[in-house]
């Protein structure tokens, strides 16, 4: 047993650290530090910077332009990226559809889609959930009927994150109802967002923001070549994707960074006449979350070590999802508690570059804490709710 970094690892860490220090655009850094939301162009610019360095396809194999990094390098990269407060890589292209295409797609699809995904030239979004199919995803009703050499899609997808920016959407659709199990007959299909009959409607979430959308398909025609892998096997592809995805959703480095910030803030902010750090109750809550997070960091490392020794990420990765999001939400709660009264003002517009400084209400991001808290209640719901994750562990790990 040993987690000591080798000289090579340390050199790699220094290289990554230097990259984020020297080449991370100053305006994006400032937005991140001040809690100003990034726009589409910011995110694309950041990812293209990673691409230029050869670091966009973190998990991708070298043959498709990926980094080919080992788990230690991925771990270091993720940690340095979080500590630099860099934006997270938007997962839909690089983390989701890319791996499905290079794993299950045909040569033509690989050539057509992978380079643009890697270069963040095309923005992807995800069409899984439906108004009637949340946790019970296999009940999905959006269907694709074959008509000549085209699939004709009808139905509604929902909770499509950043769909308003997207050029393409990957969907799970029903291509056959004549099946023994509901999980069969579902296919994985790629759709151009410009297709006639496709409309995007915004959904405003609890904190007032526009992140997610409802997407309607009315006789949307898609070439047969856009179906990935075998017809009717989409569920399997989607599941593989989700398991891989979950190993990354623990967000331990991001949470570690935020806890560090919270401790700093508690030590310096003097609301109430003295630093919050003097409040032992509050500091004990921070410490308790830190213990959980440290445990999760090692649980994730143990999972990754198992994966790198050839084992598939199994149902245990569900633990990473529900513990990781519980910790994220606990941190959001602590930030809100730290803000006291100043969690109340609802002035999201002041988190803009050009907002006049003398009209700013509260200190730093105080007035965003409640909004973040409300927004992040989504974390225990998305990606398979935390209850579904517990069902998965009960069934596949405990054999219940």
């Amino acid at each position: 047993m040993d987690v000591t970094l080798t000289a090579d690892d340390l050199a790699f860490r220094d290289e990554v650290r230097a990259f984020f220090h020297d080449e991370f655009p100053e305006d994006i850094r400032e937005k991140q530090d001040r809690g100003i939301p990034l726009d589409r162009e910011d995110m694309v610019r950041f990812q293209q910077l990673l691409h230029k360095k050869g670091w966009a396809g973190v998990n991708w194999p070298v043959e498709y332009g990926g980094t080919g990094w080992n788990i230690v390098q991925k771990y270091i990269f993720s940690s340095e990226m979080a500590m630099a407060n860099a934006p997270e890589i938007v997962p839909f292209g690089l983390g989701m559809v890319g791996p499905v295409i290079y794993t299950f797609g045909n040569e033509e699809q690989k050539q057509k889609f992978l380079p643009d995904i890697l270069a963040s030239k095309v923005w992807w979004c995800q069409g899984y959930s439906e108004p009637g199919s949340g946790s019970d995803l296999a009940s999905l009703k959006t269907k694709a009927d074959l008509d000549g050499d085209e699939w004709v899609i009808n139905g509604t997808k929902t909770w499509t994150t950043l769909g308003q920016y997207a050029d393409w959407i990957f969907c799970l659709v029903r291509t056959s109802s004549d099946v023994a199990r509901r999980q069969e007959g579902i296919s994985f299909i790629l759709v151009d967002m410009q297709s006639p009959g496709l409309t995007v409607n915004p959904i405003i979430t609890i904190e007032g923001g526009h992140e997610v959308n409802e997407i309607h398909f009315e006789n949307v025609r898609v070439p047969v070549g856009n179906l990935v892998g075998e017809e009717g096997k989409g569920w399997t592809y989607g599941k593989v994707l989700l398991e891989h995805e979950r190993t990354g959703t623990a967000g331990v480095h991001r949470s570690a960074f935020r806890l560090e910030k919270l401790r700093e803030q508690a030590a310096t902010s003097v609301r109430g006449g003295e630093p919050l750090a003097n409040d032992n109750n509050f500091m004990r809550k921070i410490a308790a979350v830190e213990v959980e997070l440290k445990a999760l960091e090692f649980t994730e490392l143990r999972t990754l070590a198992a994966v790198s020794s050839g084992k598939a990420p199994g149902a245990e990765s569900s633990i990473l999802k529900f513990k990781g999001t519980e910790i994220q939400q606990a941190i959001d709660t602590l930030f809100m508690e730290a803000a006291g009264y100043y969690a109340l003002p609802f002035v999201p517009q002041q988190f803009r570059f050009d907002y006049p400084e003398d009209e700013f209400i509260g200190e730093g991001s105080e007035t965003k804490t409640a909004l973040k808290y409300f927004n992040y209640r989504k974390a225990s719901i998305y990606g398979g709710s935390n209850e579904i994750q517990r069902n998965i562990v009960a069934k596949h790990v405990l054999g219940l």
Partner: protein
Amino acid sequence: MDFSLNDIQSMLLDSVQKFIANDYDFDKRQSYSDSEQGFSSEVWTTFAELGWTAIPFDEEDGGIGGGPIDLMIVMEQFGRGMIVEPYLANIVLAGGVLRRVATTEQKSQWLEPLIGGELQAALAFVEPQGRYDIANITTTADSDGDDWVISGTKSVVFNGGNARLLIVPARTGGDPSDNDGITLFAVDTGADGINVRSYKTVDGHQAADISFDDVRIPDANRLGDVGAGFATLDAVIDDATLAVCAEAVGIMRILTEKTVEYSKNRVQFGVPIGSFQALQHRMVDMFTACEQTYSLLVWASMTASAGGDEAKRAVSAIKYQVGTVGRKVGEEAVQLHGGMGVTWELDVAHYFKRLTAIGQILGNADLHLDRLAVN
């Protein structure tokens, strides 16, 4: 990044697992625990023969030079086997002091027979008023010519009733709770002025309250420098804390396994109770608690050899975890076993009691969380 065991560690794990599977079932454990001395001398001799009593000691002292990971492996299995033999008291606590500060002569006098399994020892680090503050020592040692005269009271000394050798931290200077002024002494329990009141503890182990009334010992029995015992004591207590946490992980895991198994077999309303989602999620949380606690244990064991602030934080983190989610796992195991869970007959009840006892010793969850909360 490597979480696998090396060859020696795998052999060690294998030998402890085999011993427990073949020679240490629950009924035997209970009979050893119920005996007058509270453990089996025969088993203790076997531990020595198998080399387990030699693990943390240097090769030149007759040990095998093992580290925190080796100890973690053994203690986790001892948890699973619910071992009552006083490994913690002899090897981790008393042995931990001896290996750090004993002179060559002192080692041949006490450490050699300790490793050989012939000497029972204990570290009397708790005082009635001290609670979890190991520096809060009012027992005094006064210099008198070439001798020291010790007076005071020690409480809940693990293995105190069986120990021939007592290691006694006493105050030779400073005020109660000062780190400076604590000196460690080796005391033969046969010495005049010692009164030992031994008793069983709720977890099937044994301990004693011991008073010292002008107990006279030669300066040759002083362990380490005068007034400088705290650092040793502190390091040994950290070792012991890590060791009982490893034991706790073993208990948590076996309790979770037994609960899952029971829920598959216990039929109510015509179906196994494990088919109820309300119970499934609780067992998933038990399983998760085991994984998370083992993760902290791995971190703490890896960090322990390096020492420093991070090692201390790691010890507090794992002990806090064991004191909170560990206790919860014990409570859930009992709850999910229903009425059977609260019977003396079922092993689950005894695992639960040991897990609870571990939460009570060497600093409880509150104390360790307080240490972590400091900015």
